[in-house]
């Protein structure tokens, strides 16, 4: 195996059969190269989407009231459930709750500044909503505790609203009108993970007071301390049970209390990515198999082409094992070197792409105050996977070469020589 003379013989043969060497090598290098690109792209997409998801709090949950659909404790169905501020206090008391915000819907959301106006959504909220929906501040501050307590007419504008109404003028401290009621702009924000920023946020207490809401609330947004989907479900059930007891409806009644659990959604999406990963692996394996078939084909041709040479070598004293060794080691040498080249090129391309994507991300983030929107991140493949794939191709190439080489070594030299 480490006979220098043998390697010299092999290298001399490779040097003098450049086309054959190139073809064998190319099919291997191409297979590995494509595999790297495939797996890298898959990883990049998966990483990008995961990251976008992570920016929005994944353990967030939304609950809203409706009408009962199941008769409960002697009460008929189709009964309107109404939440109040006391329900908010109840939710806040549940130990698993991290952050919670209540909302009172206000109808007709015409926002105006000077001569500019537009239809947007004004959301009444508690300061905690910033955490639940991962709202990022561009300028100023979010709604705070004082706004709630003093029912101040403060408003935080979404980026799009600011762009439309203010045309890049200074907005903080200015007054805009929401349904003809003046509110003071205290901040400009962007929604985490979103691409449109068309919501304006006002204190829930102010909303209730100004728009005739009394103490009523329509929905809750909260984040919970849960790591697994089971835990998250348990907390959801706990909250449902507490509200059901207070408002006397069946805890399983989804019409009376609707809920949306983001963790569940997140895990489902991740499962889709798992499926995409499997799919990519199937394609990758297919690419590898194509590479193996390519190598096998070329090895068959190589052995055919070298039949006469083998005959000559055998006539002058080459043993069958030395013939097999010669062909096999040549094949292994070529596939290993070519596989390595494919690996370096593929990894290089993906790293280059990664560099480019990161720069795009950085410029996007710089222009949007640290909030880059990109669905493709870190498109690289682990070295282990890459090395294993290369090894696999080398071994397959060796097996593919071994069978015809063995056959060639077994034929009588006279038959090989007759083959003109």
């Amino acid at each position, binding site marked *: 195996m480490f006979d220098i003379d043998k390697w010299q013989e092999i290298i*001399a043969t490779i040097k*003098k059969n450049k086309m054959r060497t190139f073809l064998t090598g190319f099919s291997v290098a191409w297979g590995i190269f494509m595999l790297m690109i495939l797996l890298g792209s898959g990883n990049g997409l998966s990483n990008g989407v995961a990251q976008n998801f992570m920016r929005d709090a994944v353990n967030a949950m939304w609950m809203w009231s409706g009408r009962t659909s199941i008769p409960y404790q002697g009460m008929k169905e189709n009964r309107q459930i109404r939440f109040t501020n006391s329900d908010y206090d109840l939710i806040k008391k549940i130990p698993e709750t991290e952050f919670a915000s209540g909302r009172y819907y206000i109808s007709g959301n015409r926002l105006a500044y000077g001569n500019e106006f537009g239809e947007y959504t004004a959301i009444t909220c508690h300061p905690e909503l910033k955490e639940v929906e991962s709202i990022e501040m561009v300028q100023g501050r979010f709604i705070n505790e004082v706004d709630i307590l003093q029912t101040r007419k403060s408003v935080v504008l979404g980026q799009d609203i600011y762009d439309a109404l203010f045309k890049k003028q200074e907005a903080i401290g200015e007054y805009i009108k929401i349904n003809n009621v003046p509110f003071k702009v205290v901040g400009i924000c962007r929604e985490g993970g979103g691409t449109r920023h068309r919501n304006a946020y006002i204190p829930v207490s102010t909303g209730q007071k100004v728009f005739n809401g009394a103490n009523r609330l329509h929905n809750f947004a909260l984040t919970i301390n849960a790591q697994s989907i089971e835990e998250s479900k348990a907390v959801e059930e706990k909250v449902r049970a507490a509200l059901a007891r207070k408002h006397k409806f069946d805890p399983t009644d989804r019409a009376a209390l609707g809920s949306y659990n983001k963790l569940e959604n997140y895990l489902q999406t991740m499962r889709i990515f798992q499926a995409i990963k499997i799919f990519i692996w199937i394609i990758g394996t297919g690419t590898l198999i194509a590479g193996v078939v390519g190598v096998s084909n070329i090895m068959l041709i190589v052995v055919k082409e070298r039949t006469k040479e083998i005959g000559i*070598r055998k006539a*002058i*004293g080459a043993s069958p094992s030395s013939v097999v060794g010669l062909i096999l080691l040549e094949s292994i040498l070529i596939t290993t070197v070519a596989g390595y080249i494919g690996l370096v090129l593929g990894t290089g391309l993906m790293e280059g792409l990664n560099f480019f994507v990161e720069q795009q991300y950085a410029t996007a983030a710089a222009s949007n105050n640290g909030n880059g929107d990109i669905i493709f991140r870190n498109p690289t493949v682990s070295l282990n996977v890459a090395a294993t794939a290369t090894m696999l191709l080398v071994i397959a190439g060796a097996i593919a070469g071994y069978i015809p080489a063995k056959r060639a070594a077994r034929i009588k030299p006279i038959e090989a020589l007759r083959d*003109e």
Partner: protein
Amino acid sequence: MIRLNNVHKSYGTGSNSLHVLKGINLEIEEGGFVSIMGSSGSGKSTLLNILGILDNYDEGSYYLNGMLVKEMSEKKAAQLRNEMLGFVFQSFNLISFKNAMENVALPLYYQGVSRKKRNKIAHEYLDKLGLLSWAEHMPNELSGGQKQRVAIARSLITQPKIIVADEPTGALDTSTSYEVMEILKEINEDGITVVIVTHEHDIAAMTRQIIRLKDGIISEIIKNGDLKQWKHQYSKELEIA
């Protein structure tokens, strides 16, 4: 040196079987210079292949240098070919991607001789055959005669006991053929047994023993002294024709 007893050989199987050698009894002494003649299909090449352990036979026995050559493992046969035999072919059979020196040195590679040493020996043999200045040339840059001389150098490099030549002059013109035969004669004078297959009478006439094959059996063995007479008779035949 070579002894064949009732050697049979057929190709193919079943009803398609072709019985090529039908009981060959032959003895070639050490230092012999023998040619095997016969019309095409007489089995002369088959006989030579069996003598050269390039092919096996079905029946009988073949003793090479006192050793029975029968049902030998490929490895052993290869070793024997390497040590005992040198081959010269009609189509030269040089490896096209190796230069003259590397071709000549190849048999020593299979003996485990170091590269430096075998290239030096190859140079010596090329020098003997007057090809030293062509050592670095590839086979396709050589003339037919030069190629055959390279092949002869290759067959000699292991200092074999027997040189087996299958139509060594078949692809060469007359003057080159005579040059090659002259070389083979010199080799024979050094004590190496030379067996050639040919269908050319003038080439056969240069050897010391002619074995004529006909339909798979030896029809005639003409020895040394008879050769002149045979030559005479042959030229008479030519005149009549």
